[in-house]
């Protein structure tokens, strides 16, 4: 039982996802969805305990040993990301139980839950993949499920955004497959551990293959993780998607590809790869442009969810910046930021979704004074936004601190300035929402806190994500130590 634990969470979700199309009634579908997620979460927690105690666990599908069989690895990176996935996906699922019937017609709802569970299981599968074949399959599942979630609501903007997302995403997958082909050609291996070993011998003989593979990986995973200039699909997709889907997409989906990149590039291709190709420098450059461009564009947005989407692009830039900065501390900060940003962005999108559900307004100009209608929700939004800006005491500050210290240790003050200036830019577009919401014009009477007349299924998920992120801002030791261990394993 103990080793089967590695694949059980995914199996539970898969079975539930396959049953769900048969369930017609929306309430029952949401109940099955949430319980499947809860069950999978408990299994994943058990797995996490095991991994923390005895180290990485390797599972051979069907009992076939690698390199013949498919290997599933549960190591700290997988456990870390899996915990992030569940921490965001479960509150979002509770949220979706009430929000989706308002956003999508009834026939679409059971498809929504199927896609939701498929997306979550594909994220878990990607984090755990020890084999390039496995990874490719889950890559495609995640792309398709994500696109379909955008288009669950049949509005013109959604369909167009989903199409663009699908096309670009498939190009990305094609590039990844091409990279796999190039690597397979010279090593004959698809299993990551065996690939790493073979590559040590083959890479000096076939440097062009490795360079080609690296480039295609960067482009392919970069499209999906929304690095500049391949990020153009993201604002439309994340802004038009229904709020629970936006939370998942911005919070989890864009990040799983970072995990994949870390596993393949840092974990498998290894040090020799970095000498062949200026991978880190290119990544640094693109990340910096990403951060600034996206922050500036976010300031120009008039729609709340579009602003949050551009903020995601900028924050992904932080993560890449930390990975490529060349300091172990910054690397740990980047890994930690995966966790922190997932929670924060999830909280932001859910709070925004609750406000939209309650007031029907999503344009920033219409949200002035919304603090009087939804004070509690806006407070949760404010807590999460403070986290994004990096006010001390929030989880965002912790990851930013590690990024800063790491970059300064490497004597890259320029990168440190990038991080700091962009935090100020973050403040420039988040604070007006909060300030005008609470203190906007025409609000001369006192602010009274009340329960917003928003159902608890909408309020509690946003609140719990915001408060959990605050908790991890004040007591960050658990995710921090995990991130530092992962950096120790993977840093180059």
């Amino acid at each position, binding site marked *: 039982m103990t080793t089967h634990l590695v694949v059980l969470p995914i199996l539970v979700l898969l079975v539930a996802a396959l049953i769900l199309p048969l369930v017609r009634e929306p309430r029952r579908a949401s109940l099955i969805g949430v319980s499947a997620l809860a069950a999978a979460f408990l299994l994943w927690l058990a797995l996490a305990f095991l991994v923390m105690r005895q180290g990485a666990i390797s599972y051979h599908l069907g009992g076939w040993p690698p390199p013949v069989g498919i290997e599933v690895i549960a190591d700290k990176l997988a456990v870390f990301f899996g915990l992030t996935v569940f921490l965001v996906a479960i509150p979002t699922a509770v949220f979706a139980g009430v929000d989706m019937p308002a956003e999508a017609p009834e026939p679409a709802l059971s498809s929504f839950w199927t896609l939701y569970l498929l997306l979550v299981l594909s994220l878990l599968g990607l984090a755990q993949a020890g084999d390039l074949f496995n990874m490719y399959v889950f890559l495609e599942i995640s792309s398709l499920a994500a696109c379909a979630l955008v288009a669950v609501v049949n509005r013109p903007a959604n369909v167009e955004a989903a199409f663009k997302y699908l096309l670009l995403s498939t190009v990305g997958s094609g590039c990844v497959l091409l990279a796999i082909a190039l690597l397979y050609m010279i090593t004959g291996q698809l299993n990551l551990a065996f690939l790493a070993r073979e590559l040590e011998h083959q890479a000096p003989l076939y440097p062009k293959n490795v360079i080609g593979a690296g480039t295609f990986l960067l482009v392919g995973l970069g499209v999906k993780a929304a690095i500049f200039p391949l990020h153009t699909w993201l604002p439309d997709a994340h802004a038009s998607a229904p709020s629970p889907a936006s939370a998942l997409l911005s919070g989890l989906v864009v990040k799983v590809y970072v995990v994949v990149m870390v596993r393949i590039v840092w974990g498998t291709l290894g040090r020799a790869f970095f000498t062949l190709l200026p991978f880190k420098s290119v990544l640094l450059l693109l990340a910096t442009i990403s951060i600034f461009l996206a922050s500036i564009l976010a300031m120009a947005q008039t729609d709340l969810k579009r602003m949050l989407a551009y903020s995601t692009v900028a924050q992904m830039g932080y993560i890449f910046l930390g990975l490529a900065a060349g300091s172990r501390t910054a690397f740990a900060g980047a890994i930690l930021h995966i966790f922190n940003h997932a929670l924060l962005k999830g909280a932001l999108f859910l709070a925004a979704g609750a406000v939209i559900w309650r007031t029907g307004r999503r344009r920033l100009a219409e949200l002035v004074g919304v603090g009087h209608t939804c004070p509690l929700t806006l407070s949760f939004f404010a807590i999460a936004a403070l986290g994004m800006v990096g006010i001390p005491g929030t989880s965002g500050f912790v990851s930013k601190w590690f990024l800063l210290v790491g970059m300064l240790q490497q004597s890259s003050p320029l990168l440190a300035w990038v991080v700091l200036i962009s935090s100020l830019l973050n403040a420039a577009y988040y604070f007006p929402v909060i300030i005008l919401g609470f*203190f906007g014009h025409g609000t*001369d009477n*006192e602010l009274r*806190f009340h329960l917003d007349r928003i159902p608890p299924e909408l309020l509690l998920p946003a609140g719990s994500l915001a408060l959990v992120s605050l908790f991890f801002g004040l007591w960050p030791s658990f995710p921090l130590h995990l991130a530092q261990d992962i950096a120790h394993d993977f840093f180059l």
Partner: protein
Amino acid sequence: MFLLLILVLAPALTACLLLFFAPPERACWRLALATSILVAVGALRLLAEPRPRLLFDYRFTPIVSLAFVMDAVGLLFSLVASCLWFFTIIYSHGYMKHEGRIRSYLAFLILSLGITNGIALAGNLVTLFFFYEALTLSTFPLVIHRRTPEAMRAGIVYLAYNLIGATLVLLAIATLAGRVHKVDFIYGGIIPPGLFTRAELVRLVVLFVAGFGVKAAVIPLHHWLPRAMVAPTPVSALLHAVAVVNAGVFGLLRVSAYVLGRETLNAFNLAPLLRWPMVVTIILGSIWAFRQDDLKRRLAYSTISQLAYMGLGASFLTSGGWTAALLHFFNHALLKITLFFCAGNLAVGSGKTKVSELLGVGFHQPWTMGAFAVASLGMIGLPPANGFLSKWYLGLGALEAGKPGFLAVVLISALLNAGYFLPILFAAFRSRPTSPPSLSEPPLTMLVPTLVLALSCLVFFFWPHLPLHLSSWSEGGA
């Protein structure tokens, strides 16, 4: 430890109570007053404790921890803040009768008290920074309290300047953390010799001076302060003459003596980086004060100028200079809050906010103008007001540092101070009206604090033992 809870957490809890549970207005006043009395008593109680002491420490990582210490400098700040807050609440009761939204005003006012105590008692740079940023956020609603377009604009400027300043401080702290692996406050500094080159130290000092200098209103980072005068007068008095700006100066004092340390500053000749901005601020602040007709704005520029005295004292790197800095920290708070309370009294009692309108107002508000006279004497630096002592030590510090030229700076600024304070007094008491004047003093809740504080300015001239003791304790390695 228990006192820590009172000083920092109790105000925060009260603020949450006021914000979330919306008690009726009278209950709000009582809660706020009770909390401020509790905090003031707690701060006074701290005087009796042995020093220095680590009050609380929670380690996040080997370098970063949330720590509170009680040493002489922190105690000084905490005392000043806690006691003056009590007076401000009483004063607000009279002043805020004309304003609305009392509940959120009191909530954020009390919250800022807790946060200021957090800054005062912070045991390392990270804790200081945490409360420093929090202070910006908690005082923001107070600045924009009147919700007029001008107030909102002032609030945005306030927020922008302070966030940028905090960012610069963060960069400096992160540099230290990465290289020195320690961010605690230890008298004499934490920088091992030979770790940094002079260029790196210059960069560090510039970052700290600029970062803390925003709150300390060093020119050219001072623009937010005059604009923030659109806030209600108790807010201006407390926050912008006592708490917020003092937090900036406190940061500078902590950095110069407890992080960088006198030896490092001396060895690399870094003191001029602190000294010259202070001199510019002193002179220019006083000159610009002349041009202000709005009384509160004139007081704002006077604050800008006076705060730089403290930085100047610290930059002399001598015992006399350090004493001057701490002494003026204490004295200026008392003097400035008296002056602002007088300004509020004038506004409420006679409806006058501009200097040009003050002709003969001394006969209608003799008590207020009496207090104003006392405080003005202190600002100029004449006995029997306590300001004289700080100027004395400042001059002493300049001589000790072997830079007698700065004596001239002190004297010139004293003259300039006289130039913009004395005319107010003369105008107020000129043109005696023919018939007995009607007294238009504001209600007692506003008048009594003003008079008590003015009296204290005199008292602390004759008995300056408290601040002097604290400053000598701090140098004894506290």
